[in-house]
């Protein structure tokens, strides 16, 4: 009887361990996935040619705030996008964003969102954040969570204002622009 119980428990442990293995194989941290999104946004957005000093000038990815996503973004340094290397730079405040092409605003900065966006308004800058209601505050691309997965929302007016062109592939996958299918 005891051995029956014992093997039953072990079979359960075995099943759990197998499930754990499956889960571990697909485990991607939220911060890493968000960094992956940012890299893709840089891939699908076109800047006016004049913002780059030279043909091989880097795309400057600037990060405002401190959290895990900000840390994960440093892994993008040196990657190639649209034939240009990415250079990651950490900013102390929004006034330093003038030379940047992408500005990621960490959630830790969400209290100053309106002020930050105002400081960079009109610049050819792609603003990205995972802060709540980012595109409502005037940001260009917001990373949001829904149904246990990450999604993103695009503010087309903000892209126009920043003179950026987003590929139709990007717009098609944006949650707020997609046809129906909220996936919520």
């Amino acid at each position, binding site marked *: 009887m005891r051995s029956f119980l*014992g*093997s039953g428990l072990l079979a359960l442990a075995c099943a759990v361990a197998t499930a754990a293995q499956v889960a571990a194989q697909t485990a991607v941290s939220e911060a890493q996935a968000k960094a992956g999104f940012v890299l893709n946004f840089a891939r699908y957005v076109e800047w006016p040619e004049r913002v780059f000093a030279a043909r091989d000038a880097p795309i400057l990815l600037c990060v405002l705030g401190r959290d895990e996503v900000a840390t994960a973004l440093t892994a993008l340094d040196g990657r190639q996008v649209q034939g240009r290397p990415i250079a990651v730079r950490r900013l102390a405040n929004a006034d330093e964003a003038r030379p940047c092409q992408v500005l990621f605003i960490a959630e830790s900065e969400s*209290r*100053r969102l309106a002020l930050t966006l105002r400081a960079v308004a009109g610049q050819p800058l792609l603003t990205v954040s995972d802060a709540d209601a980012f595109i409502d505050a005037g940001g260009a691309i917001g990373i949001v969570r*829904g149904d246990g997965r990450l999604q993103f929302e695009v503010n087309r*007016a903000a892209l126009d204002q920043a003179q950026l062109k987003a590929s139709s592939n990007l717009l098609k996958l944006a949650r707020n622009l997609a046809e129906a299918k909220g996936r919520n």
Partner: protein
Amino acid sequence: MLQWTNSRPVRLGLLLTAACLSPPLLAEEPAAPDAAVAVDMSLEDLLNVEITSAARKSQRLNDVAAAVYVISREDIERSGATNIPEALRLAPGVNVARLANNRWAVSVRGFNSRFSNKLLVLMDGRSMYSHLFSGVLWEVEDTLLEDIERIEVIRGPGAAMWGANAVNGVINIITRRARDTQGSLLVAGAGSEESAFASFRHGMAAGDGHLRVWGKGFARDESVTPQGETGNDYWRAGRAGFRGDWMMGGGHRLTLSGQAYYGTSGDTWHVPDIGSPAGVTLTDMRQKASGGFLMARNEWTLQGGSEAAVQAYVAASELEIAGAFKEQRTTVDLDFQHRILLGDRHDLVWGLGYRHSQDDISSGGMINIQPQKRSFSLVSAFIQDEITLVPDTLRLLLGLRLEDNSFSGFAPQPNARMIWTPSANQSLWASVSRAVRTPSRAELDGQVDAFVVPARSPVNPTPLPLVVSNIPNGQDLPNETLTAYEIGYRHQFGPGLSADVALFYNLYDELRAQMTGSPRLVLAQPQPYVLLPVSPDDSAKARTHGVEIAVDWYPLPWWRIQPIYSYLDLRASSKTGDPASLLSVETTNSGSPQHQWALRSSMSLSERQHFDLWLRHVGKLAASGSPLYVPAYTTLDLRYAWRPTRDFELSLVGQNLLDGQHPESVASLLPSRNLEIERGYYLKARWQF
């Protein structure tokens, strides 16, 4: 030494272990290689990655100088809760007692009863606090659970920011933006206690924004009396609503929302009756609630980057308990807020508010509320400055709210908080605050026959029955006041483990109790009686202290464990020693348990299967032998959910599994019969298309 391997189960165990623990699991720590993998994934693949980390939530909380717990949409779904009060059991420091299948008592940090009056509950900024009873009628207020984005449970006074009655806590129910609920959703289910329920939602683009419309309906089964008879606490309700969010010109963001509802629920009262030998007649009551609201909110950014919001709502409701009272009420509420960042150091928020609530109450039988019509008005102003003393490290919050209401006059509610965040994953905060609870219409104007002591009984040997009746004596009732001291600490130990501890010491004064009046002979026909009036007064005071602990732990990426514990020591005392005052104080002292704990386990066995477990313990109320005694109980909920496709889910939920039935509270204010909560099961289907 080798002998132990000879025991058969162990040897079998070793064999199985060797068989099923293959190298990838033993190797562990997949973080480093995955970092590169995630970054290089395509957009399509990233959209399909399942995220299970808790980091986001705790990071946001790390910044708050108050005892806050956030119940997320996922938490609600995985708890199996079918309504808001049941979902509130998820938060530490909250005591939820189900009085019947259609009535709840919910409080934070003590003083629980069906009409717990020291807790302010808001849904999207709309107050759900009843002016008639003080407190929330949980059988009246509701929404589509799937539309709730999160519930923020703030323990401790939030009066400086949120206004009067946010004495022991504030609960903010925040619904999802319309653009987050696009497409259609259909939910339907049935079970033993949840006889049947169904809801529908459809979200669409509308102009420069999005709109959703929704509806829900349900019928719940009756619970049982301690003897096992049916409890007459049926509940049937229907509700429909909408919400739209639009971007307007000039950066204005407009939100319009509204709701309409109708519901009937049952109850059985011990109605005092001088004609009956026992002094009471058991009477079946029927409650009807209907109403609705319309709300508009506009937010915009001003020149210079400051943010403003203006909000207005109008609500109308009708609540009738046939044979007792019928309340019709119309409320108009206006609110303005402006947030300015001054330099690098000051984050200033100020606001103005106005509310007018007009009622029309007809009453009869054991209840008499006079005058029939009365209005309540409230004017308020608040300011809060969040001062950064050391960037990213030390902040001081100073807040003050001034309120003037037509029931109890002027009340200042100040608040000071300090938060120290030595690192991104640690914070220590402390606060001192003052809050008030305004008297309710029922307290001020409600005459209620409490009970009858029959003639020639041991307590009343006289030949006439004695009627004890609650009769306001015309004196002004002041606000109840609280001075609160709190301290809290939060620590994120790593990506998978965080802990939150809060301690509090509260001093209450002018607490509501009662005083005995002089008995008088009433020569009524056919039965003369002696009337003993008791009147509400402010003769009680209390002090409470306690601690709340919440831990959030991911032992494995797909397994989340959340233990919570709350301790409360409540001592109320009478300042007069009047028998009625002492009785009120005894009721207050026995309303809330000293110990509560819960353990939740959420397993994402695979992308298609979830298995959730929720074990809860609630300490006893009052001492055994007291009429207010409710024994401690421990119970268990289980949920298994299966998603054959990403858009379709079936879940089976078992609730209160550890016993056939148990009581959670005793009736207060209204003389409802005590009922017990039964074990229940339901099956639910959820389809998005």
